[in-house]
């Protein structure tokens, strides 16, 4: 019997290695797998490369992981937030590497990784700092830059519902990066608000099919708060 549902945070975080690339879902606080980020802090892996849309708020979650010196490099589109103090302090001190990626390119690099596409061409960033040093090609008279896929060793995902096969649904704007992170990561770890029996989620409503998911932890925390 396939059962991807794990019973403890320790089981969810097992075998995450130092030096891993970790993709983290969420846009602001919505759809952000906060419990799993806390679990990763507890688990202890270090020298991480983290890709997420933002670079943490205040001193909790991703900001805390960075503050503890566990993140070597952050890949994101928008490192500013209402309270980016940890990131900015580390960045000014040269203690964290930053790769800024346009938001759509970030999402597409993840989808490409999940789809087995090693690189693709996009018009985003042509003629800007983001396009510098990248291969350019012209198609039908327009210039494009090449962007490479971004795969995760580990993906941290927040879902609304999950079953033991790892089929997922999401809630409203909590979907954001989560489905592409599940696709793009070798080890996809999900925290879910609700666990459903197999067959209980209408197949037409499944957003992320279980093939993209490895572990599911039940974390019924309620509604997101704060950004």
């Amino acid at each position, binding site marked *: 019997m396939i059962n991807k549902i794990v019973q403890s945070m320790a089981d969810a975080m097992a075998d995450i290695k130092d030096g891993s690339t970790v993709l983290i879902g969420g*846009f602001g606080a919505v759809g952000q797998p906060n419990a799993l980020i806390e679990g990763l802090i507890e688990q202890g892996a270090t020298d991480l490369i983290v890709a997420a849309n933002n670079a943490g708020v205040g001193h909790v979650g991703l900001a805390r992981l960075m503050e503890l010196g566990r993140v070597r490099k952050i890949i994101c589109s*928008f490192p*500013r937030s209402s309270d980016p103090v940890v990131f900015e302090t580390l960045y000014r001190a040269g203690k964290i590497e930053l790769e800024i990626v*346009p938001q759509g390119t970030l*999402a597409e690099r993840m989808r490409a990784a999940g789809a087995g596409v090693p690189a693709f061409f996009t*018009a*985003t960033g042509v003629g*800007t700092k983001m396009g510098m040093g990248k291969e350019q090609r012209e198609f039908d008279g327009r210039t494009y830059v090449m962007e490479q896929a971004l795969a995760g060793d580990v993906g941290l995902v927040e879902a609304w519902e999950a079953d033991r096969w790892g089929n997922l649904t999401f809630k409203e*704007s909590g979907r954001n990066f989560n*489905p592409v992170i599940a696709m793009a990561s070798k080890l996809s770890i999900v925290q879910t608000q609700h666990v459903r029996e197999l067959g209980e989620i209408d197949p037409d409503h499944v957003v992320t099919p279980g093939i993209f998911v490895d572990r599911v932890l039940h974390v019924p925390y309620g509604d997101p708060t704060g950004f």
Partner: protein
Amino acid sequence: MPDTAVTDFKPLNRVEMAARVARDIPEGWYVNLGIGIPTGIADHVPLEREVIFHSENGVLGMGPAPPKDKIDPWLINAGKQYVTLRQGGSFCHHADSFSMIRGGHLDLCVLGAFQVAENGDIANWATSENDTAPAVGGAMDLAAGAKRLWVLMDHTTKDGTSKLVQRCSYPLTAVGAVKRVYTNLAVLDVTERGFVVLDMAPGLTFETLQSRTDAPLHRAS
């Protein structure tokens, strides 16, 4: 207000600027409004004129902000403000949401900017080459991907420096992307000739507008 004291014209205020853009958005368009002043444009599009607003974080068919007691904590826009969803609205993931942008499916995107050049270049994400923590978000995708890019911004900086320029000095967001600029002084199309003036604030003359603009202006013919 030196502008009104010295000369005899009245610049548009923020609300009037947003309303001026809203006038030009027809029913049926799919539209993304950037963070800041452009977000306010939606307030001036009447609900019966069906314009479908898109937000980068996977929301299509966005409605106005909810009253405080009706906030849905799962429903935010790209500026991380609480919003509502209109009947017919839908959610999608980030790669699909940016496919709407990058795949040329949006009829219009309106962004704020630091500078717009007469060749349509836009600079709106960083003001210097060594900005400590540059943050681009979805601006480059929107600027390069939407069918039309309009810019809504003040005509000059607070110290009077023109934001309409011959060449951008700040880091670019996209090259040759801007089609039209709405400012507190004028509406201008970006054409092969450069900036063409379509409309001016009440009482403003072409000569006065030119004196406040770094790039040469052209009259609509």
